[in-house]
């Protein structure tokens, strides 16, 4: 019974003698009421079923279903975009996923991006001079198979993004399962900033309020008068910790890693 409810559906299940009369105002009123009740009931039950289905749910119901998948709605994200994320294989453990997690945090503070390297293949290889290759002492290693961005021309444009090695890396062991994440040095995050209001459309409203401290308990304290100084609550250490937390949640278990704030990546 999926079609809409009609008056005839209700009349059909009434006793025959009730149906017999063509004119029965009370019967018809009750039937009409039942039709409306059933229509509303169907509307609500269909809505309830749809809100239990991640492919059709909306709003808070969709958010709840997505949360069960470990996917949480972001500011400004549409229902459809959220749904797609929840139904897509989670982006975990891969270099791409780890760089994305780190860069999402870095983007709040700098345009510089994280770079990564791995211990087994990106290490500094040293030999005694008898081999046909050299150890790139004092030079950036040119391991062509690693498809570093610096070797893009030699490799015909094939590049592993964000894999710039930045120099020779020596590791204490040959166990592998270890990656390095280099991030830019974050500076000035804790600095205080004074803001001067600017209003292109109404220049008369653009002003800076400077107080002399004579009314610290009154208009100055209430914000009606004064220079507004904003100190970003973030610190470099806090930002680095956020990256560590994000990467630790999605990296593969047993894989070791280290994060290095590298001045060569800018700030």
């Amino acid at each position, binding site marked *: 019974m999926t079609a809409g409810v009609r008056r005839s559906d209700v009349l059909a299940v009434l006793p025959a003698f009730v149906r017999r009369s063509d004119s029965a105002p009370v019967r018809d009123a009750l039937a009409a009421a039942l039709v409306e009740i059933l229509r509303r009931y169907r509307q609500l039950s269909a809505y309830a079923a749809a809100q239990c289905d991640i492919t059709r749910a909306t709003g808070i119901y969709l958010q709840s279903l997505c949360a069960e998948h470990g996917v949480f709605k972001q500011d400004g994200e549409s229902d459809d975009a959220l749904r797609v994320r929840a139904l897509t294989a989670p982006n975990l453990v891969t270099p791409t996923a780890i760089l994305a997690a780190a860069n999402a945090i870095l983007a709040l503070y700098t345009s510089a991006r994280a770079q990564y390297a791995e211990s087994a293949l990106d290490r500094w290889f040293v030999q005694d001079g008898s081999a046909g290759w050299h150890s790139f002492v004092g030079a950036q290693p040119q391991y062509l198979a690693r498809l570093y961005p610096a070797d893009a021309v030699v490799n015909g444009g094939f590049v592993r993004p964000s894999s710039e090695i930045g120099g020779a890396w020596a590791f204490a062991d040959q166990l*592998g399962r270890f990656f390095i994440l280099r991030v830019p040095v974050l500076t000035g995050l804790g600095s205080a900033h004074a803001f001067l209001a600017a209003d292109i459309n109404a220049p008369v409203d653009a002003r800076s309020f400077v107080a002399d401290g004579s009314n610290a308990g009154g208009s100055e304290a209430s914000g009606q008068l004064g220079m507004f100084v904003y100190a970003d609550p973030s610190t470099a250490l806090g930002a680095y910790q956020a990256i560590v937390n994000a990467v630790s949640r999605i990296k593969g278990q047993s894989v070791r890693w280290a994060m290095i704030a590298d001045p060569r990546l800018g700030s």
Partner: protein
Amino acid sequence: MPASESLPTIRDLLTASADGVVGTRDGQADVRRGSVYDHFAGSGAILFTREAARDRDLFRAVYLDTAEGDDLKTLVKLRFGVDRILASAGRGTALLTRQAAVAGAGTIWQGTRILVFASAASPAPRSYAVSSDVPVDASTTALTVPIRAADAGPGTAVNLSGPAVARVDDALWDTTWKVVAIQCTDGTWLEAAADLRSRARATQLAVRKGYAQAITDACVAQGAAHIALFDSNFTAADAGLNHCYVAEEGFTTSRRLTRACTIALESYRACGADLQVLGMQRASVDVSATVTLRDDPGRLPSVDVALRDALVATFEPTRYEYDLDELAGVLSGASGDVQDVAFDKPSAPAPILVGGQMPPVLTRYELGVAALRYVGPS
């Protein structure tokens, strides 16, 4: 909303209605069967039992394990990106000829049946049908018509030619048309709900990042036809370096393929688990062996065909290594008359590892020339 409780019956709802009237409106109300109250309570109960069943079906359609029919088909498509295999008839073509065009023009109508005669391969005759109208002009004496199997499902694949393989089984305006060749693919059955659910779940597992299936699929997407994955502990000294060998059709690897796979795998492999992408090559292995039989070869039935077939079979799957003892075992296993095998070629086994390390290029071995010499026991 899967519930362990059964759906309410008409009697349940009538009782609830009567209790409601008596309890909240009129303690003396007549709610017996046939009463005025019962007229509308009865119709309401009938209608609401239907609503309860509808609710059950609505919510069953939400869950993979309970959805059926079109609901299941839609669910697996939207949530898993999996298309259900529908029932389909095999499709193909038939070549029809006639000696002369005396009967002139006409039409081979859609639905015209073609009967493939019974044969050793198929003991029962099989029926096919022309799948669309084919107009025939007055001078045509040979034409190919599209066909479909008369019934949906597998078992309809056919590829025959000759004067006595099939006939047109319905009357045409020209009765001299003969079927001289026919080919048709297999059809499919409607995928069972349980199979579809299982496939949807397997698909979901296969796309998980960091797993072998996802890594293999990523290489296939870049054009690889052959992929071999080796964990870092394949070598005696585990240095944490995993290997992925890729090759195009024919077991050759272009530089483009290794580079493209290397880049693509950055989105599928585990960061920190170094993965080196390398290529493959193909090598032919000539086999020359002296086979010692349990008796004089002249007094035993020939084992040559069995041994050669066994050799071919052992190289038939993708083989990246071989061992002489293993090959000797293959030959011995092919016939109980074999007592011993001594190889002239190959003279040494070919393991995967080279000097204890993974090779820069993985070799796929194929059987070349096989020369077997048979001797009796000394």
